[in-house]
């Protein structure tokens, strides 16, 4: 086991390159096989190496030691859910004709695993940047003009995050002399920069808009991959690097309510799920800010559950997009009639994300709520409870209602192909399975705990909070209407998409005229100088004329006389 050859990223990375060469059944076997091999490698790491300092392999590099393969229960948990997501994502995308997307998606997964097993900051940074390149390739591979533009914006934001992260890492290494990736607090400028670099990938403010801006522009399957890895790898590095950094509580809570309010305003179903990613990651970021063992367990369990139910939701809406070619609520309605399986899977995903009892979302979010109560962060408890109810309105009701029920759009699209249905059913089973048997799931978590979420009081109050908020939603719908229109809601990205662009355009125009006038002045000056020289030295110039010998002799005598006078005067 003490070799990089057993790194769980390797089979998926090799598979990604082979995908470019293979077709048909061989390609399908490869896409489904490599995640399973990766999962087998994750679970064949000996227990002795899952210790707190389980370094499987280290490599000397300059005066440091790189640790590209370091394992503990936290990395194993993320590697497990990444493997499951790789399997389900590849199954869903099995017939994807854009091979570039499959290649990019699989190297993206491999690089995510690279971050998860990285024991030092340099390795984290290298894989972090490669993830940004691979994920933007997934967006580009959708092939549309809007995807290209969104991909460029996505890449710009992530390269900015990379620069900030690199600056932080360089400062940290220079200050401490160590590249070890361990728990820290943002108490110095370099560490604050590292935190900012990590946070950018979670969709934290002010740059939250990159998630709903870019992900929906990927293909029906591309968004499934994108939803799982970038934000959750960021949650992983925050859980490892900054547990208990209290600023994360405020940032996380902002993300929760940002996602709810913008999600409720949104008319594009896929974009609404983008806002919902920010909202859910907000719960995880808040839990990491609380930082107790139970809260960290809550954060990472939530990340695990979220990858599955959000993957399921995006698969379901992706299926609707795949068969109808449409993505707006105003274009949907009544699709339950001909897409019952997709609808049921979407509803299960919606119930899970809303933390309905006996679903994966309930048993994972419950730990964070419990941690806020035990840690006496009562105000956070109230806000998290409000956030849970808000999510139910967004994804639990609005998404389901306007896509599958509501006003009949008259469309009767078929269910998606078998492999897409199979991927959805697989994830739906996991959502319910984790919710019904949470203790099995809890054994995977980094810290041992004795917590039971499925108690009668918890179940009753959770049903109350969710269903009563749902009642409020339907009452508003009934009496005030819910006029969905083709619109967008301005966000912080306005500053770089409009304001910043206007500044750039003004600069270009003004700089252009300034440059023209400088060139004008210079060329005029040069012409005048040339004219003057020509005037004196040209064929008719005063210095070019021939002079009589008498005048030359006269001027020579004058100069000699001046010389003699100067000589007598100063010697």
């Amino acid at each position, binding site marked *: 086991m003490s070799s990089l050859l057993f790194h769980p990223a390797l089979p998926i990375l090799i598979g990604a390159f082979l995908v470019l060469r293979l077709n048909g059944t061989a390609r399908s076997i490869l896409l489904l096989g490599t995640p399973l091999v990766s999962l087998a490698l994750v679970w064949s790491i000996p227990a002795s190496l899952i210790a707190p300092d389980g370094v499987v392999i280290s490599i000397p590099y300059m005066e440091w030691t790189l640790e590209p393969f370091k394992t503990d229960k936290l990395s194993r948990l993320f590697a497990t859910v990444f493997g499951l997501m790789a399997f389900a994502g590849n199954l869903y995308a099995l017939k994807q004709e854009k091979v570039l997307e499959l290649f990019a998606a699989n190297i993206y997964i491999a690089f995510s695993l690279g971050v998860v097993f990285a024991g030092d900051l340099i390795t984290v940074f290298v894989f972090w940047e490669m993830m940004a390149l691979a994920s933007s390739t997934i967006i580009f591979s959708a092939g549309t003009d809007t995807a290209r533009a969104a991909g460029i914006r996505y890449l710009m934001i992530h390269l900015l995050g990379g620069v900030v992260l690199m600056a932080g890492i360089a400062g940290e290494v220079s200050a401490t002399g160590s590249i070890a990736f361990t728990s820290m607090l943002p108490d110095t400028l370099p560490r604050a920069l590292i935190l900012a670099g990590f946070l950018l990938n979670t969709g934290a403010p002010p740059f939250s808009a990159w998630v709903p801006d870019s992900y929906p522009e990927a293909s029906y399957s591309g968004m499934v991959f994108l939803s799982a890895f970038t934000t959750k790898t960021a949650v992983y590095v925050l859980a490892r690097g900054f547990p208990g950094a209290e600023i994360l509580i405020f940032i996380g809570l902002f993300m929760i309510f940002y996602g709810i309010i913008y999600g409720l305003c949104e008319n594009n179903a896929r974009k609404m799920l983008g806002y919902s990613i920010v909202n859910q990651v907000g719960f995880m970021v808040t839990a990491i800010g609380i930082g107790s063992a139970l809260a960290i367990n809550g954060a990472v369990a939530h990340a695990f559950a979220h990858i599955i139910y959000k993957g399921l939701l995006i698969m379901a809406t992706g299926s609707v997009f795949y068969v109808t070619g449409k993505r707006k609520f105003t274009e949907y309605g009544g699709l339950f009639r001909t897409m019952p399986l997709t609808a049921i899977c979407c509803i299960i995903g919606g119930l899970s994300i809303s933390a309905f009892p006996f679903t994966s979302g309930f048993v994972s979010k419950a730990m964070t709520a419990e941690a806020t109560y035990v840690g006496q962060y009562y105000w956070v408890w*109230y806000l998290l409870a409000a956030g849970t109810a808000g999510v139910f309105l967004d994804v639990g009701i609005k998404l389901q209602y306007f896509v599958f029920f509501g006003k009949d759009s008259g469309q009767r699209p078929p269910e998606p192909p078998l492999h897409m249905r199979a991927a959805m059913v697989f994830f739906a089973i996991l959502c319910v399975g984790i919710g019904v048997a949470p203790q099995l799931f809890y054994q995977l978590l980094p810290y041992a705990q004795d917590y039971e979420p499925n108690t009668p009081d918890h179940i*009753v109050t959770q049903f109350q909070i969710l269903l009563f908020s749902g009642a409020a939603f339907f009452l508003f719908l009934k009496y005030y209407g819910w006029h969905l229109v083709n619109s967008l*809601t301005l966000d912080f990205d306005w500053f770089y998409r409009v304001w910043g662009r206007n500044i750039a355009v003004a600069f270009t125009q003004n700089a252009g005229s300034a440059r023209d006038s400088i060139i004008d002045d210079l060329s005029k000056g040069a012409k005048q100088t040339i004219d003057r020289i020509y005037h004196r030295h040209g064929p008719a110039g005063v210095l070019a004329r021939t002079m009589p010998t008498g005048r030359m002799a006269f001027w020579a005598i004058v100069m000699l006389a001046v010389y003699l006078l100067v000589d007598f005067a100063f010697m």
Partner: protein
Amino acid sequence: MSEQKNTHWLDNPETPKRLWTGFAIVLVLLVIAELFVTHHHKGFMFNFGFSAWFGFLVGGVSIVLSKGWKKILKRKDIYYDE
């Protein structure tokens, strides 16, 4: 085909009314059920009926807030393409 469409339960005009009635019964039962459970923690948030009214309040406030937010910041969906 049209017969099948007409008989679909979603198209039955009685369906929304039935769903509302069923939903209201479930809400009442949920509040009653709280009388029969013991809370593991103490505090305002575990008082009888808290989750019910808090959930309703959050639902209402979320919708009012999002409608207000949208009113201020709503633009045409081709805003960035113009």
